[in-house]
């Protein structure tokens, strides 16, 4: 009998087909308090990281933007204001609970018209090729089972001249800071998770999944391999987070 193919789920090895189910369980569990938890976990700095990503995306009015793993739609909301009524922003997530929550939030804040929603797996996007001017994924890539498939799909749906931005937790550049960060991730974070969402395990997974995610150079190589050109990355907060950007030329 052939050995079953496995992948990582945090520090555990799980069958490939099981990772998506497990990730969905994590986000189903945290969806209702996702925004609050993000603020607590990052001390509000995630808003600054997202602003940075928007500035690097350089989207203009009238353009089409695809935001993958949108969550509650922080990036998509800003893009919608920039592209205006002649542009289009598509907000997607693989998790129905998260996407519904994001959609409700956008509607409550009066954003309609140029904002569309799609329940989609980043590994197999339901969009035609060469359609979008910009594709972003914020804090989502590390939860994707086959990251290289997702990056290839981002490349496929981009128009020539378009750019992809990956905002994701990464690896601190300083060893001393890295130790403090580990202490915070594995001790403080699960406690916060238990207090706010009554779910320490999900936040332990988040901390572990960040450690298993490729480092800055590793992810840049993956983008190069997918065909992206002029790939660069920008370390934020000592490398806790990095923004990778590549162009389809």
């Amino acid at each position, binding site marked *: 009998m052939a050995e079953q193919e496995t992948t990582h789920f945090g520090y555990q090895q799980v069958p490939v087909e099981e990772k998506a189910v497990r990730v969905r369980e994590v986000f189903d569990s945290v969806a209702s308090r996702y925004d609050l938890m993000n603020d607590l976990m990052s001390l509000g700095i995630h808003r600054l990281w997202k602003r940075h990503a928007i500035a690097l995306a350089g989207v203009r009015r009238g353009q089409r933007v695809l935001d993958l793993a949108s969550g509650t739609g922080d990036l998509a909301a800003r893009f919608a204001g920039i592209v205006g009524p002649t542009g289009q922003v598509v907000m997607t997530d693989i998790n129905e609970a998260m996407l519904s929550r994001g959609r409700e939030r956008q509607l409550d804040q009066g954003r309609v018209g140029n904002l569309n929603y799609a329940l989609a797996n980043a590994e197999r996007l339901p969009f035609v090729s060469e359609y979008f001017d910009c594709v972003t994924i914020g804090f989502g890539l590390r939860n994707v089972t086959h990251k290289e498939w997702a990056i290839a799909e981002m490349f496929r749906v981009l128009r020539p001249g378009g750019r992809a931005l990956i905002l994701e937790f990464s690896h601190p550049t300083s060893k001393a800071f890295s130790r403090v960060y580990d202490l915070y991730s594995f001790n403080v974070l699960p406690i916060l998770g238990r207090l706010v969402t009554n779910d320490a395990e999900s936040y332990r997974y988040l901390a572990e999944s960040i450690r298993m995610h490729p480092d800055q150079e590793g992810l840049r190589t993956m983008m190069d391999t997918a065909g992206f050109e002029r790939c660069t990355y*920008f370390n934020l907060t000592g490398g806790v987070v990095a923004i990778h950007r590549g162009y389809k030329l």
Partner: protein
Amino acid sequence: MTTDDTVQDPGARADFAIPAGLLAAIEGALNQYIALDPEGARAFAPTYGHIICIDIAGLGTRLTLIPGPDRVQVFGAYDATPDCLIRGAPLDLLRMMTAKRKESQLSSGAVQIEGDAAVAQALSDALAGLAIDWEEQLAKVLGDPIANQIGRTLRAAGDWGGRTGETLKANLKEYLEEESRLLPTRYEVDEFLRQVDGLRDDVERLAARIARLAVLADAERGDPR
């Protein structure tokens, strides 16, 4: 290939990059201010989606504003060519943004606009046109009766201040002109200026007469000039 490892504005073009936290605070404060006048906020509509770059001379820094229906987004450098660039010293920019008439700042060259000037004009018109009803805002916090009372007290204080100021000015003028005689009165100044004008005319007439006589004297000597 990395930038430095702090959260900063991504613009490498600016000499001084405004920290991202400060940019977020500026954006929050600006939008709260605009929200205080919902009617006036509609004037931003012609600027929606336009990338407006403000180059603050002297500080070597840039701000990028992208107005939209729900908020004005504020960045340091934005990685796209701006629709218009407004360049000037901080005070000149502030004057242009808040003044009803911008001609003096523009014609003197204190503020320069490159690109779509209509967008820059629409933005500064919208900002200058914001009229905040502070009494209404106060009423949301303290309730109508107290806000109304405070408003009336402040208006009365303003009226009293205005009247007192006028009286003080008149008294000071009278003291300087009539009692201490340190300054001339308006009538004395007018008379003095009239005499200066008369003297200047007399001098000009005399100069003309001398010139005419000089020509006549030369003619009599047979020395045509």
